[in-house]
């Protein structure tokens, strides 16, 4: 259903009265980003529907409230997929919420991230103006790349009304291989193999085993298998393993202890940190549990080219994302102001002062 007019009307009014809005997709992802004071909800969930889907043109255009589930089913019917393999985190998850959070799944280091597959957006800025950037074509350099800027902005720059995504054919075959290794060896192997022309599509180390997924033609997968070796997971077990990992249903993620995400240069050797670590994305994404000293973690991550986030649990009233250097943060504030001069869009969700 097209709810554009209602949404635009509500944002315009909020802008005129400088009244903050809380943008909601399915409305359950409150744990991600900073906890903010309750504000008037702007409901996207009813703004649903696939507007245009052309399998041979490799794109799909859909309203932001469309559920990921619906989208995925449509794509599967045509033998295609979202290459960034986003986590659903619940059956209701919307494409708007997924992009606003910038979530990608296991295929990310090999196929690209959510923002890599965004071709265009139809959005509302904080003035309630309806704007289109990008389009339905693969290449477009007219104007600044606002579409990709919005990915991961947690709704603080604009409301996604409609998005166009690039889609790709599903691989003919997938196969998961398992090696028993320690962390250091796992990291070395993930990176060595990523430096060779192998059809890798996912990798993870769960404390004892290195899991590698191969995707491609029958022949390419077979050739890579003979090179990499290891135990073969039964097809269904393989599918389930990556799905559980993606959805944070793997046993590592269970329980209510705080969940930290470290993003680092992939070949970074094991970090001297107490407790268990779960590694994904060829070494680039590392998960930790429990109470931690945020600034110590962030310093460590920065030393290895990255950053740390309090992903879930813990104290979300404080900052949860790594603080930015002053000049960069000032630029963020000016940019926020350029899109949302009255500061009504999800204020404080990304950073307290944004």
């Amino acid at each position, binding site marked *: 259903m097209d709810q554009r007019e209602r949404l635009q009307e509500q944002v315009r009014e909020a802008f005129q009265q400088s009244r903050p809005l809380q943008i909601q997709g399915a409305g359950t992802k409150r744990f991600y980003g900073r906890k903010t004071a309750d504000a008037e909800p702007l409901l996207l969930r009813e703004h649903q529907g696939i507007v245009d889907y052309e399998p041979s*043109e490799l794109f799909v255009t859909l309203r932001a409230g469309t559920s990921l589930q619906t989208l995925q089913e449509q794509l599967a019917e045509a033998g295609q997929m979202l290459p960034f393999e986003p986590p659903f985190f619940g059956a209701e998850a919307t494409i708007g919420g997924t992009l606003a959070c*910038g979530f990608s799944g296991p295929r990310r280091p090999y196929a690209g991230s959510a923002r890599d597959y965004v071709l265009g957006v139809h959005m509302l800025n904080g003035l309630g103006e309806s*704007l289109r950037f990008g389009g339905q074509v693969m*290449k477009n350099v007219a104007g600044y*790349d606002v579409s*990709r800027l919005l990915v991961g902005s947690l709704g603080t720059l604009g409301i996604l009304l409609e998005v166009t995504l690039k889609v790709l054919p599903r691989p003919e075959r997938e196969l998961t291989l398992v090696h028993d290794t320690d962390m250091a060896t796992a990291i070395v192997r993930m990176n060595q193999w990523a430096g060779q022309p192998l059809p890798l599509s996912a990798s993870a180390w769960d404390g004892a085993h290195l899991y590698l997924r191969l995707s491609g033609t029958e022949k390419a997968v077979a050739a890579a298998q003979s090179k990499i070796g290891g135990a073969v997971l039964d097809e269904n077990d393989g599918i389930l393993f990556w799905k559980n990992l993606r959805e944070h249903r793997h046993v590592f993620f269970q329980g209510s202890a705080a969940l930290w995400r470290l993003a680092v240069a992939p070949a970074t050797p094991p970090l001297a940190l107490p407790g268990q670590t779960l590694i994904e994305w060829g070494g680039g994404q590392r998960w930790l549990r429990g109470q931690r000293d945020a600034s110590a973690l962030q310093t460590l991550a920065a030393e290895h080219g990255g950053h740390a986030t309090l992903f879930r649990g813990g104290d979300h009233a404080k900052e949860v994302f790594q603080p930015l250097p002053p000049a*960069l943060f000032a630029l963020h504030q000016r940019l926020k102001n350029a899109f949302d001069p009255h500061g009504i869009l999800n204020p404080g969700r990304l950073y307290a002062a944004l």
Partner: protein
Amino acid sequence: MAGSPDSEHAAFLSALRALLPDDGLLTQSEDLHPYECDGLSVLRELPLAVVLPRHRAEVQAVLKICQQYAVAVVPRGAGTGLSGGARPCAGAIVLSLARLKQIRALDTSNRTARVQPGVRNLAISEAARPMGLYYAPDPSSQIACTIGGNVAENSGGVHCLKYGLTVHNVLALEVLDASGERLEIGSQAPDSPGYDLLALMMGSEGLLGIVTECTLRLLPVPENTLVLLAAFASVVAAADAVSAIIAAGIIPAGLEMMDQLAIEAAEDFVHAGYPRDAAAILLCELDGTEAELQERLRAVEKLLQRQGATSIRIAADAETRLLLWKGRKAAFPAVGRLAPDYYCMDGTIPRKRLAEVLEQIAIWSAEYGLRVANVFHAGDGNLHPLILYDANVEEQLHAAEALGQRILELCVAVGGSITGEHGVGVEKLDSMCAQFTPAELAQLHRIKAAFDPEGRLNPGKAVPSLHRCAELGAMHVHHGQLPFPELERF
């Protein structure tokens, strides 16, 4: 600043002179002429001066001096841009990044290259090759263009269909803002906290900041590669074949199309063995392991035959493969030999609209009396019509520009864009008015102001003023017949 314009001008230049070595500051008109345009040579302007710093600290100092004297800055790489992005502006300096050309680090284990902005695109792949790695985006100008220019234009190449554009292959940038403040954007990790400024910098045409270092993602060199050359009796058949390949779930490493005029020109120029009698050819590159390749090759061959290919040639050895690509990569200069001048367009369209767009271009080509050769990144819908003209024949330049503008408006009308990879520069400012509404343009201007409040980085480029679009809109009333064609519109 106090003082007369002249004394201020002199003070500005002497501040630069004190900073830079003798050959790092050009002010004499004979030294400035090589910088008066980029690859779009019809647009020329002499800058106030050209500065050629050697490292970041010098760039930073130059920017501080420019801020102090309120002088605008036009960044420049190799000057191969095709939209006037690096064309000087009156009263501005040209800031050449060409001397910042060190490859700072190649990191084998993380598969990255850290390079200065003046490094040539091809030099990166050459340096990475001994490690079995390469940098994927390969614009046809890759022997000359710089990585800084690639970032500023979000350049593509013939392998973008599978391996992405510049935006997909850059991990981090070191950027100086207009005041010389250093910003680190992106990271070595898969993502960064805060807004995705890395995406915003890509294709920002030097308006948001000066790129002084780039960290790039390197990919493993594929095990095997082969190229198919298929000839077709019509462009429609060739276009349908492209859709059929992609609909079959195959994403080739490259998928390019050329029409008859482009084929003939390329053949005369590099003797690649293209079939001169074909109405269109497709070049299709496949890569992968040997076994995979054979399987894919058979599938693609079958599809091409079913789509009515009149001949298919397969180049499996490196030499023939490179020769087939050479014809394509040299298409612009080759077509350039057919007429004294050519005007290269860069629209994108949904692939399924190709036939009707080419038909319309052919009709207009006859109407304007100007030949058009078409070269097409077919896989991703990026069309390069090359309009042939002679600037010495009265009105031909204006006719070529008018035809170009109509082609771009057609691209927008069928759901595409006025530029896929060459950028807006000064060339496509008017076409931007067709693609964006005033509210959208105002939003783009506010983004610019967030980065560069004084508007001193590459002013007057990439995003037209609302005023300009309003005037153009008023002129459009006359069925696209611009009044006062003799007035400069750039």
